[in-house]
C-alpha cells in the first residue's frame, strides 16, 4: 500500500493536508482544475519534492528515508512531456533506469505497449502517441525487472498527446496492466469522463486542497464537480450504468 498521510508542501506549489492511499492492482486518478496542484502532488508522491508536513509511506516505510536507487525499483513516473532525446535509439532509451536488464521482461513490456516495431527508431522521429508508448514501456521494464514486493506506476497526464479513441484505449490498457502485473497506479487526468470510466478511486483537488477522495462513483457527483471546476454540468447516462458529464 502507498499511503499519503496529511501531506503538505510549500514548493513549487502549495498543497495542504492531502490524505489517500493506493493499493496494488488499483487505479487512482487525481482530478482538478488547472493550477490545483495535481502534478506537484504526483511528483511529491514520486519522492522528488520533499514534504513540508505529513508523510508518504511505501509498504509502511517512510518514502523520505528510501534512496533513489531503491525508490526506482518500487515506483516509476512518466512525465507530462516525456523527453525526446534526439540521436538516442528507442532500444537504448528502454534500458534507462533498469538495473538488471531482462530480455523476457523487456519483451513483455514491449508487447503490452505495442512498441516492438519502434526499437530501431530515433526518439526524435516518434509521434506524440508513440513517444508516450515508448516511455510507458520503459517505465514497465523498470518495474517488471525489479524484485520489489510492491510496485507503483505514476502517470502525469498519460493521454495528453492522444485523440479521444487512443486516450480511451490507453487507459483501458493501463487498467489491465495494473491488474495483470499487480501494479498500483496513480494518474493525473484532465478529462473527467475518462476518470469516470477507468478509475477505481478518485482524488479531487482544488487550490492545493483535497475536496474529496473515495470510490469513483461516490466522489464524482455532478454537484461536487461543478463546485470544483466552477462550471455548470449536465449528466448523461446510457441506461446501463455508464455516466458522462458535458459542460452546459
Amino acid at each position, binding site marked *: 500500500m502507498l499511503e499519503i498521510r496529511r501531506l503538505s508542501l510549500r514548493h513549487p506549489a502549495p498543497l495542504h493536508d492531502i490524505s489517500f492511499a493506493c493499493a496494488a492492482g488499483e487505479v487512482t486518478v487525481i482530478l482538478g482544475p488547472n493550477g490545483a496542484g495535481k502534478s506537484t502532488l504526483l*511528483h511529491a508522491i514520486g519522492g522528488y519534492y520533499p514534504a513540508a508536513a505529513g508523510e508518504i509511506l511505501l509498504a509502511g516505510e517512510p518514502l523520505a528515508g528510501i534512496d533513489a536507487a*531503491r525508490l*526506482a525499483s518500487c515506483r516509476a513516473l512518466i512525465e507530462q512531456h516525456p*523527453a525526446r*532525446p534526439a540521436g*538516442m535509439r528507442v532500444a*537504448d532509451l528502454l534500458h*534507462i*533506469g533498469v538495473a538488471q536488464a531482462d530480455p523476457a521482461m523487456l519483451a513483455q513490456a514491449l508487447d503490452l505497449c505495442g512498441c516492438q516495431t519502434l526499437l530501431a527508431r*530515433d526518439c526524435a522521429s516518434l509521434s506524440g502517441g508513440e513517444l508516450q508508448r515508448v516511455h510507458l514501456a520503459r517505465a514497465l521494464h523498470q518495474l517488471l525487472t525489479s524484485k520489489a514486493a510492491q510496485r507503483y506506476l505514476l502517470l502525469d497526464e498519460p493521454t495528453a498527446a492522444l485523440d479521444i479513441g487512443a486516450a480511451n484505449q490507453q487507459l483501458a490498457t493501463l487498467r489491465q496492466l495494473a491488474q495483470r502485473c499487480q501494479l498500483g497506479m496513480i494518474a493525473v487526468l484532465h478529462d473527467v469522463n475518462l476518470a469516470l470510466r477507468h478509475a477505481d478511486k478518485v482524488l479531487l483537488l482544488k487550490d492545493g486542497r483535497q475536496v474529496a477522495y473515495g470510490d469513483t462513483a461516490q466522489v464524482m457527483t455532478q454537484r461536487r464537480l461543478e463546485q470544483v471546476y466552477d462550471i455548470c454540468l449536465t449528466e448523461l447516462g446510457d441506461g446501463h450504468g455508464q455516466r458522462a458529464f458535458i459542460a452546459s
Partner: protein
Amino acid sequence: MSARTLLILLASLTGLAFFISLLAGEHAAARLAALFALPGHDALERELLLALRLPRVVSAAAAGALLATAGLAIQARFHNDLAEPGLIGISGGAALAAALALAARWPTLAVSIAAFGGALAALLLVSHLARDRATATLILAGVAVNALCGSLLTLLISTLPDGALRSVTFWLMGSFAGSDGRQAWLLALLAIAVTVALQRQGRFLQALQLGDRAAFYSGFNVGRNGAVTIALAALAAGVVVSQCGMVGFVGLMAPHILRRLTGLHLPTLLKLAPLAGALLTLLADLAARELLYPAELPVGVITSLAGAPFFLYLLTRKRPSHA
C-alpha cells in the same frame, strides 16, 4: 556504424597516428631504427626520442583524451551540445589560476592543483549563472567568465619580465613542445583515471538525457552523481590547461563526431571519446610541427582553426541542443 567497429577503427587510427607522430620529421628512418634499437642505431637519436619526442606524443594523446572526455561529460550534464571547456570559461579559469601559480613559482603538481581549482570555480560560477538551462545563457555566461579571466590574465602577464612573457604567451596558445617525462606520465595516468571514473557515470549520464527529474525517477542521485561528473571534467580540463595551455575545441569536436556516428548512448560514447580526442590532438600536434617546419605553430592555433568553423556550423544548425 556499430560501436564495436568504431572502437576498433578509432583504436587502430589512434595507434597509427601515435606511431607516425613519434617518427615524423627529418631523420624518420634513423628514428625508426632508434625506436626499435636496431643494430647500428644512433644512441643519441634514441635518447632524444625517448626524452623529448615520446613525452610530447604521450602528452598530446593524453591531453586529447582528457579534453574530449571532459567535453562529453559537460555536454551530457548540461544537456547542451555547445558546452566545451574552452567555450564556457573552464579553461579560462584554469589558465588564470595556473598562471598565478606559475608566477608564484609553485611546483608542477601545485600548478595542476591550482588549475583544477580555477576550472572548478569557473564551472560552478557558469553553471550557477546558467541555471535556467538555456543554451544561450550557458554560452553567454562562458563568454563573460572567459572575458573576466582573460583580462585578469593579461593584467598578470603585463607585470611579467620579457623572457617569462614569451614563454607564458606560447603556453597560453597551447603547445606540447615542452613536455617532459613527468608531465607525460601525469597526463597519461590522469587520462586513464578520469576515463575509468567517468565510465562509472555512464548510466547516470544516459538517464540524464531524459532530464534531471527523469534521472532521479530512474534511480540516480542527481546532485551527487552530477557533482562527481563536474569535478572529474574540471579536473581533466584544468590539468590539461596547466600542463599544455589552451588547446581549444577538442572537447567540442570529438563528442560531436562520435554522436553523429554512433548515436546518443553515453556508456558507448564515454568509451570512444578518449580515443577520438587523442586522435584529434595527435593530428593537430603533427600539423603544428610540420606545417611551417622548421618553425613550429602552437597546437591551439591548429585546433582553433579547425574547431571555430565547426562551432559556427553547430551554432547555425536548427537544433542547438540534444536534450
